[in-house]
């Protein structure tokens, strides 16, 4: 019975909820975006959060077994659900103006995720948008395939980018992760053909394997000849340093640029890396203060 229950749970897809505005722009039952960026590591979540400060979630991804709080007031890094944000593919700004604020003339943020209104013309611009998914909840490896499948059933992207991490003890390669920041890329054959220019990011050394959401996304895309890239950071310490975060930011910008997106670039990258480093190092310090 226990094994049967585990099997049933492993194959259960996540529940995905969209705000009323985003759901109106579905075509053929799918949301069409240029890039789907999934941040799965704490470093990438913090970096994207600081790079693209979007305040209004377009939707949430929630696994059935994850506990839900008394009500979603405002998305927060502490929530046990994965929030999704739509950003303009070129500017990185939120793609949905806050129509309620405009109507009320108020600068306050609407507290309800699911009560946004938007003009029809703005909805049509979804195709120039990228969808950022913050998978801030640690995911069991056996849930990764159903999670990815559930998301890719309702989101169609020209390219999928997954930002993930690899623990140093799983790394097999010529370099020393304790001495330098290491980031590698795993690309499907279709992604290599799609990219206009070649980036300079090294490929994952032979012998190292990625698992979890990044592997599930690559697997899903490779067999279907779709474009997907996993950008993997080798983690050798509890909190990444500024060099590692800066390299992650620069490599993410390179990958996005080779697929025609420009919402992460310029001075904002270094600032975002510094903010992320400050946030993560204080969180790591606090976690060690109390045993």
């Amino acid at each position, binding site marked *: 019975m*226990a*094994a*049967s*229950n*585990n*099997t049933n749970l*492993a*194959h259960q897809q996540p529940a995905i909820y969209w705000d009323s505005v985003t759901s109106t722009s579905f075509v053929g039952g799918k949301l069409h975006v240029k890039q789907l960026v999934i941040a799965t590591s704490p470093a990438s979540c913090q970096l994207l959060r600081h790079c693209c400060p979007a305040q209004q979630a377009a939707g949430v991804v929630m696994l059935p077994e994850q506990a839900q709080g008394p009500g979603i007031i405002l998305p927060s890094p502490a929530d046990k659900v994965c929030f999704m944000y739509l950003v303009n593919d070129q500017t990185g700004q939120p793609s949905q103006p806050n129509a309620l604020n405009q109507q009320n003339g108020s600068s306050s943020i609407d507290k309800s995720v699911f009560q946004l209104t938007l003009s029809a013309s703005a909805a049509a611009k979804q195709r120039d948008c990228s969808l950022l998914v913050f998978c801030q909840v640690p995911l069991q*490896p*056996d849930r*990764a*395939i*159903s999670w990815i*499948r559930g998301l890719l059933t309702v989101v169609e992207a020209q390219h999928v980018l997954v930002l993930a991490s690899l623990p140093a003890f799983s790394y*097999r*390669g*010529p*370099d*020393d992760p304790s001495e330098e920041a290491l980031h590698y890329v*795993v*690309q*499907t*054959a279709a992604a290599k053909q799609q990219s206009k220019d070649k980036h300079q990011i090294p*490929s*994952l*050394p*032979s*012998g*190292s*394997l*990625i*698992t*979890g959401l*990044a*592997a*599930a996304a*690559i*697997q899903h895309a*490779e*067999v*279907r000849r779709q474009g997907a890239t*996993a950008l993997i950071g080798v983690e050798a310490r509890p909190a990444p340093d500024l060099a590692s975060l800066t390299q992650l930011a620069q490599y993410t910008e390179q990958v996005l640029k080779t697929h025609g997106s420009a919402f992460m670039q310029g001075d904002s990258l270094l600032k975002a890396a510094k903010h992320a480093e400050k946030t993560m190092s204080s969180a790591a310090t606090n976690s060690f203060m109390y045993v």
Partner: protein
Amino acid sequence: MHFFPAGNAPCEFAGAKLLLPGVTSANVGQLAIDLIISTLHLPCVGQLETSCLLPCAGIGAFDHLSQRVSLSLELFECPVAQGPPVFVLQQRAPAARGCQRKYAEELARWISEAVFAEVVLIASLDANLRQDRQIAGQQINYVSSGSAAAVCQELGWEQLEGGLMAALGQQQSLLPPWTLIEAFQHRSITYTCVLAFAAEGNNAPDAMRVADAVNQYLHLLIQQQPQPNGKHHASKGVMSLPPPWLAPLSWKYVYGPASSRGFY
């Protein structure tokens, strides 16, 4: 379980043999498959997708496929001297929690629908399970469903003792290779299971031994690679193995990078 061919042409499996590993202690089956693919430069003909295995991905597992993404379950084709080709399935990831039996059933169904003539399953058993008379001598045992028993005995293999098989089948009924054997029996699939006793550690020698045995059974045409300078070729820096075996590129850093010269 769904098969995605690598090229545009469909694969013909009917009447062919399938070689596949069982994910068992010491991973000898998977290592032996890696050796066979690397030595024979087998082309990848497709991937199988199932939600029963944990996802994994890497790049460049083999010299001749250095830019290709490797996934959890991949199929390679090996031409043989006579008859239909042998297809080699490499499994890189274990089954997800609670999915061993379901995976075995899915795989058996796919094999049955593809009408493979025979399945050769290679796996390892913990060396601690050996009885006194098994400690010395040939470490290859077999379990077979049909007429292959005579061939196995000609090769000098010993049939796994009924008592040991029953005991392991009961104690480890939810672990490979027993889940796979049970699924094959349920679907009346002709199979031969090649079992090697091995202790966890550096299992490259065990993998070579099993690969040698499989080569004798399936006649995979493994010969020493001829080289202009007369030396056996191996990729630079990859583990050096006795001929005819070529270690795959993915074994290069299995024990980590070389120590820094600054230490000495």
